[in-house]
């Protein structure tokens, strides 16, 4: 698998650290309900198909990247800087 870092271009998967579902960038408010935190930390849709997850370009530019890819085929559909995704949400 190769991932395209929005800053560095297409790079080997080994340069990246996998964090998990991109839900990680939607951190609940500190005073949110326990059930909301449980969902955020533990519970996952875990789709068999297109998913969005968060990777860290550990051995490259240290950017956090949201990767849209297919879990059935390993095809990478889109990569975006997590900071850009976050800005788009706010």
């Amino acid at each position, binding site marked *: *698998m190769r991932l395209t870092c929005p800053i560095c271009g297409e790079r*080997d*998967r*080994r340069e990246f650290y*996998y*964090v*998990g*579902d991109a839900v990680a960038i939607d951190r609940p408010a500190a005073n949110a309900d*326990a*059930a909301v935190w*449980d*969902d955020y*930390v*533990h*519970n*996952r*849709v*875990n*789709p*068999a198909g297109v*998913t969005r*997850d968060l990777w860290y370009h550990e051995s490259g530019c240290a950017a956090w990247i949201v990767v849209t890819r297919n*879990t*059935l*085929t*390993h095809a990478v559909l889109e990569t975006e800087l997590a900071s850009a995704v976050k800005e788009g949400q706010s």
Partner: protein
Amino acid sequence: MGFSGWRVLKEGLTGNKGWAPHWKDAEPKSDYDVVIIGGGGHGLSTAYYLARNHGITNVAILEKGYIGGGNVGRNTTIVRANYFLPGNSEFYSHSLKLWEGLEEDLNYNVMHSQRGQLSLFHSDGQRDAAVRRGNSIHNQGDDAELLDRDAVRKLVPYLDYDNTRFPIYGGLLQRRAGTARHDAVAWGFARGASDRGVDIIQNCEVTGIDIENGVVKGVQTSRGAIRAKKVAMVVAGRSSQVAAMAGMRLPIESHVLQAFVTEGLKPCIDNVISFGMGHFYISQSDKGGLVFGGDLDFYASYAARGNLPMAEHVMEAGMTLMPMIGKAKVLRSWGGIMDMSPDGSPIIDHTPTEGLYLNCGWCYGGFKAVPGSGFSTAHLIATDQKHEPAARFRLDRFKTGCGLMDEEGTGSQHNLH
């Protein structure tokens, strides 16, 4: 008809014409007391123990593919009970005891071979951890022996003892651990369940779970609707999809785990050996192939095939530990889909829906758990009470933070196990 040495001899002398299929490929009925979704090792053993221990035989196993076609037929076949934490410790201890009586119980040769498993350590700190783990295993009543470097060398002389980075300091040996023939385990449980009246229904995909007023009523399948008083979801890597049909979102992420087999070789590796400085473990199958594997690829996947970085890591670890395998040619590799839980330990529990039960989260350790998991899940379904050895496999432990079983001590988070 039962298997025996006499029977094998008789069939051998009469052209092997007396053998019949080991279990019945059933057609679905409209109504069952219990429907088990998933005909893998855990689903089959759940049905078997429902019939054997609780006399519940109006049971259907619904399998999307074919029996033995999933992870139960594709794994590295290791059976052990060397866990450290309460919860895991008593469960795997119980499961290993079931393994030890399994062939007699099933009247089926699952080729259970207690050849011993050796977990190596490579530093003083790792030795301390091994002593602690060994004591915990003893407290549970199971066996563990601490071997120093010379004793390990006597047992397995072919390792690289003086590797510059990872010299071998010793190992923790569990002699009762070993391997079993994975397909035979599936077939043996299928035969035992089928003989007691359980319907094993293949090519039957569950497409919906019928729930009315919080009570399960049955399932919709690719072969029609089936009513059931109780339904158990025992589907490993596909747990999230099946549970979603019941409106649940599980603490599960599905990952791919690779394993590898070489061409058949003369007997050379007598035990199961685990490297302590990188994820690598190896045994030799009865056909002669070296069977080995390593860590997850570490990204969510349902592709049933891995990527090269982990294949490379496993080969590197193998060559570091035992350079003698370098000339063996890898015949094939495969990737299985693992239902990873945040703390790396399993779940056997009720769900918020009455009559609906959940068995998942076996991570990369499901094979050795097959008898124990079925035993405990059957107990839960039949009595609605948790079976003592599996009582800590609670679904709500992530929500409450109480009773997490993080065996590796890395944290209770999805990307850490």
